[in-house]
């Protein structure tokens, strides 16, 4: 399967290596970027094309039970989007929640090569691995949820950070995860009682824990273990006007955690478009008074360096909201006057109140939606350090990942923003500063925020997000000449080229050409296996057996995902966490 390639004369954007629009040759051998390719290498002339590393998407819901429930409940969203089979590739559907094969192919066609599923109930991980068999062409990672688990609560309540860290390490190894996801800590659990939490120090039913102790405990445990990706955080109060202030309070609380390694960031705040809503002056926390929180949050971001962010941009049109935040999903259902189709999926012990799913349409003419749309753009156009931010739509929440080109066009083109400001409710202009913002992202900025920064944020920068020696040969070639194409004044070209690459290479193999996927490659799974010292390892085996036998409804020995489903896909990185005290 190995191929040797020389990609000649492309205009390369590789910000991790300081390359900005230089004509360069890239050599590929055995799936890696190398200094010099063997003499039998295939040469492809990319003159007049733009070359970047394969896209990296650390936050996209591409698998798991919530996605399947959404597909089952809303077949209508896929009905008119067939994805036919070819001799070499499987069929599927390609609407806002594409089927598994189509998910892989659509990402390949867009030039993305690494995608992270950010909400895995670990107890259902076996099903996730089975699905990955049918999602081709990507390197995939998963972030198990630890935030509303009774086991986490037990360790947080006891102030036992070592125990919490060991539970995380045990789970990442047994189910093959990359990092730690936190969703509305304590709130989803409270939803099992029909309640939610909002303040940092609110009580969580039955337990002596609070949102503050859960989020700081987990962030600390992640640092103790030395995981490459900081705690991936969906805060409390999601989707509540004015929540930019409570989000900053929560980030402040986590800011007290000391980073254990070189990386300064201890938390990744995800889908800020849903977390950073403001209100008008003297306004109340309701949708009538909602205003952009983008500027407020950009200011906070520019002053505080302990966190990273992704946008969770809403893109208008039909979407499918799905989060591990059960009470938020229920409130969204109530917001539709109980008309929407509301689904809720509790999971044994790890997600007692449950994840929720509500199909939702973001309307350009809705004042609330227009303000939410503008907030994340205002933020992105006002931050100084792009290396701590990546683009996302929180697929399929703010819209499907297929809308990334649209998001890119808003960032790269003032003309495009003006066009859209004319289409959406006037509050977008009145309650934000977007109309006055001149800044336009350069191609280099796009390369940072779609591959280089996300790779670094995930801790995968050794092999992902760049085109330097030793990187995986994941390469996206866009069919426009950056020296001759005025993208900012031709936003339609942005939409065209970023939806379908000229070529996408995954591990040195060409998977697509002009948006047509011609090769169905098995995906691989990136995971982290933290090694604990023997004492801690023995302690956690004992304690988890006791808790899991008592609390889960299935047998302890049936919790781990068997090797048979993993060994041909998994690329585990073993990290030394033996310093965590027993």
């Amino acid at each position, binding site marked *: 399967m190995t191929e040797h390639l020389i990609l000649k004369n492309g205009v390369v954007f590789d910000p991790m290596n300081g390359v900005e629009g230089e004509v360069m040759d890239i050599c590929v051998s055995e799936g890696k970027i190398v200094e010099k390719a063997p003499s039998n290498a295939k040469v492809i002339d990319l003159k007049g094309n733009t070359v970047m590393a394969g896209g990296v998407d650390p936050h996209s819901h591409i698998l798991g039970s919530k996605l399947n429930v959404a597909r089952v409940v809303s077949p209508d969203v896929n009905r008119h989007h067939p994805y*036919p089979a070819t001799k070499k590739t499987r069929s599927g559907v390609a609407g806002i929640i594409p089927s598994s094969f189509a998910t892989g192919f659509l990402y390949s066609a867009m030039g993305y090569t690494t995608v992270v599923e950010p909400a895995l109930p670990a107890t259902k991980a076996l099903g996730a691995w089975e699905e990955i068999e049918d999602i081709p062409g990507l390197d995939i990672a998963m972030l198990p949820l630890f935030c509303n688990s009774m086991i986490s609560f037990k360790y947080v309540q006891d102030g036992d950070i070592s125990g919490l860290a060991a539970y995380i390490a045990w789970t990442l190894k047994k189910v093959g995860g990359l990092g730690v996801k936190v969703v509305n800590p304590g709130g989803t659990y409270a939803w099992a009682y029909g309640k939610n939490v909002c303040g940092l120090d609110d009580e969580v039913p039955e337990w002596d824990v609070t949102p503050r102790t859960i989020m700081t405990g987990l962030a600390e445990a992640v640092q103790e273990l030395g995981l490459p990706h900081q705690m991936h955080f969906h805060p409390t109060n999601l989707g509540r006007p004015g929540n930019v202030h409570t989000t900053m309070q929560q980030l402040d609380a986590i800011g007290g955690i000391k980073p254990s390694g070189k990386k300064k960031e201890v938390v990744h705040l995800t889908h800020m478009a849903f977390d950073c809503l403001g209100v008008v002056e003297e306004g109340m926390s309701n949708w009538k008074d909602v205003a952009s929180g983008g500027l407020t949050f950009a200011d906070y971001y520019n002053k505080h360096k302990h966190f990273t962010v992704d946008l969770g941009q809403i893109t208008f049109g039909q979407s499918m909201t799905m989060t591990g935040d059960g009470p938020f999903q229920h409130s969204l259902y109530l917001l539709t006057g109980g008309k929407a189709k509301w689904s809720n999926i509790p999971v044994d012990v790890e997600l007692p109140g449950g994840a929720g799913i509500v199909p939702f349409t973001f309307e350009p003419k809705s004042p609330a939606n227009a303000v939410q749309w503008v907030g994340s753009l205002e933020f992105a156009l006002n931050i100084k350090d792009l290396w701590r931010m990546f683009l996302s739509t929180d697929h399929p929440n703010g819209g499907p990942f297929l809308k990334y080109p649209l998001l890119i066009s808003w960032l790269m083109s003032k003309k495009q923003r003006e066009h859209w400001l004319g289409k959406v409710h006037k509050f977008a202009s009145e309650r934000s500063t977007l109309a006055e913002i001149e800044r336009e992202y350069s191609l280099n900025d796009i390369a940072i925020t779609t591959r280089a920064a996300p790779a670094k944020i995930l801790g995968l920068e050794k092999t992902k997000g760049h085109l330097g020696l030793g990187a995986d040969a994941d390469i996206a070639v866009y069919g426009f000449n950056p020296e001759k194409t005025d993208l900012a004044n031709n936003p339609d070209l942005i939409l065209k080229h970023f939806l379908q690459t000229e070529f996408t290479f995954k591990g040195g193999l060409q998977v697509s050409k002009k948006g047509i996927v011609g090769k169905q490659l098995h995906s691989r799974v990136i995971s982290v296996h933290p090694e604990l010292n023997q004492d801690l390892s023995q302690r956690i085996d004992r304690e988890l057996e006791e808790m899991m036998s008592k609390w889960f409804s299935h047998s302890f020995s049936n919790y781990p995902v068997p090797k048979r489903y993993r060994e041909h896909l998994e690329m585990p990185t073993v990290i030394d966490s033996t310093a965590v005290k027993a």
Partner: protein
Amino acid sequence: MTEANNIFNAVPCTFCGCLCDDIIIEVDGNRIVKNTNGCAISKERFIGHAENRCLEPTVSGKTVSLEKAIERAVEIITSSKRLLIYGLSSTENDAQREAYRLAELTGSVVDNTTSVCHGPTILGAQESGEATSSLAEVRHRSDLVIYWGANPAAAHPRHIPHYIRQPGEYIKDPKNDRKIWLIDIRETTTARMVDRFIRIEPRTDLEVIQTLRALIRGHKLDVSQVGGISIADLEEIAIAMKSAKYGTLFFGLGLTQSWGRHRNIDAAIRLIQDLNAHTKWGLLPMRGHYNVSGANKTSTWVTGYPYAVDFARGYPRFSPGEYTAVDMLARGEADALLNIAADPVAHFPRSAVSHLTKIPVINIDPKINMTSQVAEVNIPAAIAGIECDGAATRMDGLPLYLRKVIEPPEGVIPDRDILRMIIKSLEKVMK
């Protein structure tokens, strides 16, 4: 897998949707001699696994080699214009995934047994969503459990004793802290296991549910009784539902396949959604075949749709009522049937079976069943969860790894491998 002296612990039972995974299986040589913890059905399934087996492939009643049987199956498939692939709920996920591949390759329809059990549940969810629950959640928290149109005593024997009538973290005394009710049209054996039995008149499920919704929303009704229950009693039931801390509704085919069908489920879902404005409620279908939930899941991630999928155009399309097996057969549309791990002749209505006897049938099953009697090609399969491994999904969505505890009969291979052989031969023929 824990294996010592031929004892296998924590084995999932592959009979019903409970997928109880605390079964201890003892094997002596090539015989299963003991099943500890299993219900009567589970014991029969494991200990009697060798009974009534189809041991050799046959074509038109004559014993043939596996290769010959595959060859004939491929002939039937290639000469068919409208192949129906059906069954899949009593096998493991990989076999299901191969079936979709075969359907795509041949432009066929693929349907699973959902279309004759909880199909209406899915249609109801497509109207209204679905606020589900999970089994540990019910055990730890549920203080009011209602079974509606379900008879777990017969169909899911350990559902009540293993999952529900057990102490949980916040229900210390399951006898007193948790009430179990049954709503049904007749006093089944389950009625004897519950704390309260409420009989309603046949064909009134929808009315009773909608009445409860109205009462829970505080409406006054101008009738004295609905479904044979007085309004006063219904009011009391509505109040009890509203004042439960965590309620759970388990429903069976008595709700999905009776008068009203998907409308019953739609209403039941809306009832649960309404209750969530006051307290916490969830609902779960009592899935029958051990991996019918898995069949929905695999079909959904591979094709986008849970059942009734047509590949005639080279991509999946979904249309229950059109691409569902009974309708395909009753309309006389299917001109060949590939049946895997199900028994349509035993369960389908006469009009469908009548057409089925007129078309070539390929039947893949471990046992001799009624469909084997009409099938032109019979191919024996290993029993998943006993003679081969795999994955399956419990009724609440939990995936579990199935064990191989014993070798299959000689020459008998898993469903997935039979399907792969068919696909491989087809790919050669179709080149």
